[in-house]
Structure formats: structure tokens, C-alpha cells
């Protein structure tokens, strides 16, 4: 088919400078994924540096940074309690990184030739590392505070003893599956959104081609798809924020389990 657009092409990780650098059998070249992680980091550093002026009468920027910090602080206080304060820096970092990475991923700079954004969080390698980091902190906090008593997490209060052979494996599996569901949710939500945008984008291009070729239906399809892209983009912005929030929220809930053991 002429003008065929592959919706998976946008997720390809490739070296920025065109050639692979192989070190000891591993490809260590600077990829577009790494580039966009650096971009996200720089934006984040800029946002925080601009917000940390500590003026008595805060400007808009400082209010934005302070309300982001306050938002996570509130989440910690509600979900974990007073002990949650010391986890706030980690949750805040992971929330802001995911939020910025998601938002940078949907920036429409692809209308400029040879430029396109890369959604860092649309790769399970990235989201799984974030999820395993959260899970590792949960394990470390749990064993640090409770020692082997941490395993009582798998034994719910008030359950009858004869139910234990069933309920302990179920609780164990549901505990061990947490990092996978945490990473998978973010990765799939972002991937699905980007595929959807790309598919409607290809409808616009193919509709224009058909319209130029003499079919009036092509113009209509193209126009409707373009309107749809605007709507889906708005939805994507919402999903970006919700997924970052959900990741932070679930991490804080798991931390609450580790701190309080039910």
C-alpha cells in the first residue's frame, strides 16, 4: 500500500549520532531514549531551580513548584501518616520524572522535519526499572522495620485458619505481581495512546492523498481524523497526568503496607 505508515516505528530506539558504539559486547551508544531522558532531566532541573528561590512573596513559578511538592506531601500524609514524610523525596522525584517524560513524549514537534519526540515511558525497560526500584524500596523498608515479621503481610487479620493454605499463596502472588502491574500499566497506557495518535495521523495523510487523487470522501475522512487527533491529544494529556499520579499513589500504598503491615 502506498504511503503505508507503521504505528510501531515511533518506538524504535536508535543511536542519535547514527553509529553504534559497542563496548564489551554491549551496545552503549547514546540513543534517542537516552537523549530524551536527559531532556526530561534538564527540564525538571530547570523547573525546580526556578521554583527554589524562597521568596517571601512567591511568584508564579515558585507557587507551581511549591504546590507540586505540597501535593506529594499531602499524598504521603494521607496514605502513610507521619512516617510518610521521609518517603516524600523519592515519590516526588518519581512522580515528576514520569509526569515530565509523559508530557515531553506527546509534544507535537514532529511537524518540524527530522524531529520527533520519543516517549521515554513507552518502553517497558524504563518503566520496569522504575517499578522495581519502588518494589525494592518497599522490600527494604519492610525488612528493615519489621525483620521477618514482614511476612505477616501475607496473613490477613481475622481469616479462619483452615483458609490459610489458600489465602497465603494468593496474597503472595498478588504481592509479587505488584512491580509488573506497576510497570506494565504505565508502559501500556503510554504506548496505546501513541499508537492511537499515530493511527489517526496516518488517516489524515491517507485521506489527503485520496482527496488529491479526486475522491471527496478523502477530504472528509482527513478532516474528521484531524478533529479526532485534537480530542485524543487532550485525552492523552489527562492520561499522562493520571498515570504519573497513579504510579506515585500505588507506590505510596505499597510503602504504607511495608510501614504498617495492614
Amino acid at each position, binding site marked *: 500500500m502506498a504511503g503505508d505508515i507503521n504505528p*510501531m516505528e515511533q518506538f524504535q530506539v536508535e543511536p542519535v549520532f547514527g553509529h553504534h558504539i559497542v563496548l564489551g559486547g554491549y551496545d552503549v551508544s547514546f540513543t534517542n531514549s537516552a537523549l530524551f531522558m536527559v531532556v526530561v532531566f534538564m527540564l525538571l532541573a530547570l523547573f525546580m531551580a526556578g521554583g527554589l528561590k524562597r521568596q517571601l512573596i512567591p511568584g508564579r513559578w515558585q507557587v507551581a513548584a511549591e504546590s507540586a511538592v505540597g501535593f506529594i506531601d499531602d499524598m504521603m500524609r*494521607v*496514605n502513610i501518616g507521619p512516617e510518610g514524610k521521609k518517603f516524600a523525596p523519592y515519590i516526588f522525584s518519581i512522580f515528576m520524572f514520569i509526569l515530565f517524560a509523559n508530557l515531553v513524549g506527546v509534544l507535537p514537534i514532529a511537524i518540524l522535519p527530522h524531529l520527533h519526540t520519543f516517549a521515554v515511558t513507552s518502553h517497558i525497560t524504563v518503566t520496569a526499572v522504575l517499578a522495581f526500584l519502588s518494589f525494592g524500596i518497599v522490600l527494604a523498608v519492610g525488612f528493615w522495620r519489621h525483620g521477618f515479621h514482614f511476612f505477616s503481610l501475607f496473613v490477613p487479620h481475622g481469616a479462619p485458619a483452615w483458609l490459610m493454605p489458600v489465602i497465603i499463596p494468593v496474597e503472595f502472588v498478588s504481592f509479587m505481581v505488584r512491580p509488573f502491574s506497576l510497570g*506494565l500499566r504505565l508502559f*501500556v497506557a503510554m504506548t496505546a495512546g501513541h499508537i492511537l495518535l499515530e493511527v489517526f495521523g496516518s488517516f489524515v495523510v491517507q485521506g489527503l492523498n485520496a482527496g488529491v487523487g479526486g475522491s471527496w470522501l478523502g477530504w472528509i475522512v482527513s478532516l474528521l481524523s484531524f478533529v479526532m487527533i485534537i480530542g485524543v491529544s487532550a485525552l492523552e494529556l489527562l492520561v499522562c497526568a493520571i498515570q504519573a499520579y497513579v504510579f506515585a499513589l500505588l507506590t505510596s*500504598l505499597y510503602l504504607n503496607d511495608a510501614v504498617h503491615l495492614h
Partner: protein
Amino acid sequence: MTDLGAMYIGAGLAAIGVGLAALGVGNVFGSFLEGALRNPGAADGQQGRLFIGFAASELLGLIAFVVAILILFVVKK
């Protein structure tokens, strides 16, 4: 029926789960709104639980989507 045709039908069937998860997510938000309109004072305190319910039901739809994508792109033709 060819193998390729069967694969496409399978991917389409897997996508039914996405629609069912849409019902689930709609149910979460609909029930929340119903409760929130009856007692708006308590609504803000329950927002965390709203998103937990949303995340749980959304995940199942996303897994259905992953199955469809696996069938389409990963299973060897």
C-alpha cells in the same frame, strides 16, 4: 481459514476485553460521582480510592490490549 486470518480474529477477540474494561472504568467513575453528588463534603477525601479503583480496572483492559498487540506483532507469522 489461514493462520494469518485466525491471528487477526484472535487479536480482534482480545480487543473485546478493552471494551469491557471501559465499562468497568465507567462504573468506577459513575459510582463515585453518584456518591459524591449525594455527599459532596466527603468526596474530596475519597479521591485516592477513586484512582485506586480506576487503576485496578484499567489495568485489566490494558492487559487485553497487550494480548492483542502480542498476537499481532510478536507471534511468528
